[in-house]
């Protein structure tokens, strides 16, 4: 038991530190890297909770795919740091004060007093032949089939929305016309203009 507890505190500490570092990092690429560390720590904690499938999905989907896309986007965008930081210090005292109050309140309410072992018994460990994925699939396609379908609708909306907002109709879209490129003649591209150097009042002294 003790070893698992040590692991939990290590990953928990890493999670908090890396999420703080993600917000405070000056370089947005570094923020993404810290976010990846955050995801890793969260995934490790999930494994300690015997939620292997979720942990693996988090790493495969978020770290493997989404974060790589994030890095691409950040490298392609030209983010102006000064405008981002301009109002930061002005709002800092207020933000810190509000955050401190919220943290204190949450610490008062959500301590081990409310969620400790005296209120909730320790969940039983599953046997070694227990399959997380089978259990999840059974639940998803029976009891939770309705929310599962709704989540699919949500993804459909995300696709429709992003295409609607970015797609330009034919007239406005900038695209290559291959036939025009092939048929182009030299005289279409180069215009030879003879300029008399004496005119326009410019003297070649």
């Amino acid at each position: 038991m003790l070893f698992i507890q040590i692991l939990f505190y290590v990953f928990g500490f890493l999670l908090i530190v890396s999420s703080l570092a993600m917000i405070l990092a000056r370089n947005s690429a570094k923020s993404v890297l810290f976010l990846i560390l955050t995801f890793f720590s969260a995934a490790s904690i999930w494994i300690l909770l015997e939620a292997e499938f979720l942990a693996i999905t988090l790493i495969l989907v978020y770290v493997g795919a989404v974060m790589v896309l994030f890095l691409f986007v950040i490298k392609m965008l030209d983010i102006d740091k000064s405008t981002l930081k301009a109002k930061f210090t002005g709002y800092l005292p207020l933000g810190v004060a509000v955050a401190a109050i919220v943290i204190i309140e949450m610490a008062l309410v959500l301590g081990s007093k409310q969620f400790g072992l005296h209120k909730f018994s320790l969940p039983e460990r599953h046997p070694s032949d227990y399959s997380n994925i089978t259990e999840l699939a059974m639940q998803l396609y029976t009891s939770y089939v309705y929310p599962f379908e709704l989540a699919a609708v949500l993804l459909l909306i995300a696709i429709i929305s992003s295409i609607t907002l970015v797609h330009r109709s034919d007239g406005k879209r900038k695209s290559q016309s291959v036939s025009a490129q092939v048929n182009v003649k030299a005289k279409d591209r180069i215009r030879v203009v003879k300029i008399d150097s004496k005119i326009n009042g410019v003297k070649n002294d």
Partner: protein
Amino acid sequence: MINNFQFDISSLLFVIPEIFLLSATIAILILNLFLTKNKQLVYYLTQLVLLVTGLLCFNLIGETKAIIFGGSFILDDIALIFKIFIIASTMVAMTYSRHYLITHSLFVGEYFVLILLSLLGMMVMVSGYSLLTMYLGLEILSLSLYTLIAIARDRTIAIEAALKYFILGSISSGLLLYGMSMIYGVTGSINIIEIAEFVANTGIKSNLLVINFSLVFLVIAIAFKLGAVPFHMWVPDVYQGSPTSVTMFISTVPKMAVIAILIRLLTDGLEYMHIYWSDLLIVLALLSIAIGAVVALKQTNIKRMLAYSTISHIGFVILGFVTGVISGYAASVFYILVYILTSLAAFGIIILFNKKGFEADKIIDYKGFSKHSPWFALMMLIVMLSMAGIPPFIGFYSKFFILQQVVAEGYVFVAIFAVVFAVISSYYYLQIIKFMYFDQSEKTAIFSAPMDIKIVVSINAVLILIVGLFPDFWIELSRSLF
């Protein structure tokens, strides 16, 4: 878990409207790709889909109350009546929107698909009986709305409104989820029935602190979605920035779906916590009524003015829930139905007044309105008097029933406060009437809108008068729900 590993195929019978709506929406989405010329067909198909979905819901009336899909879906009178009203008001809103969309070159197939999908989200919310489905419905609705606002992507003001709504909406969704996770942490269930049982039997003493804590988050999220003060900051900007047809949609139909969530969460799930949540709601209600009335006085844009008017109306709706008795909830439902009817008519007339390249969104645009179109000025007069709560229009009765219930439960000072601010708010409704009837304007507006909109607006506005004269049916309807 109510029934572990069970899926009853017959339970699909209760979700036929939703299944039909989703399938038809996807069909329209695909069909839209192949329609290059005749986009009007998409509009007519949308109306047809709405009609059929409404009839399918109507067909389910009289079924006994059913809770299916492991407790995540409920079919009862509230769900059915709310769904039918939501569909009907969406149909009216679509009728008003068509001409506006054409003249402002926003008539794209995706608009209608997104409206249908947001409708699906609202139907899910109304029927949601577990925290998970409520949240999913809310997200389906919100995501569609964000895109609908930004669909006018050449207008910076619309993009700004969409971004504001998106960011603040995401924060409120986060708060909602946080509150829900706390409820789950304490009760160990996401089903409203089981939460209610837990709170009633075991939980309330030993877990009072955490349930109260999560309650604050839930109420804040609901207040945000309704646009109640102090979570109203997004309302005026979003109303002003959105295309008027989208403003009309946002300001009417979704409010009803959020009210349904409020009924399920607070009055069903956390009924025993009433003394705690009524304190929260009373603050929201009074602030909304006051701020909505006072700030609207200074507005020059009619969409912003109606935004503050919405805030004030939402205050009254919340006030009905403060009472904690069934007749109070019924008064609130009645109020929201009346609000939607009136608000649809108001936006219908604003849209009617729109022309190509001209958004009739300044209040002074309505100067001399009665000279060049006396009939629609009369309709606007009915709408404004109803909103101000002057008898015999329906807006009077809706305010009256709320205040009656509030006084009956002993909140006399609250009622006096609400009445005083209702009187103050009547100033800006009457100001529009003054502009329409007593001021001169050199501009003459010519309506380019087609006949169907004019007819529906007229019916809508006359309905405000007729229902105001014979309100019994609607009152009985909203009483029968609880």
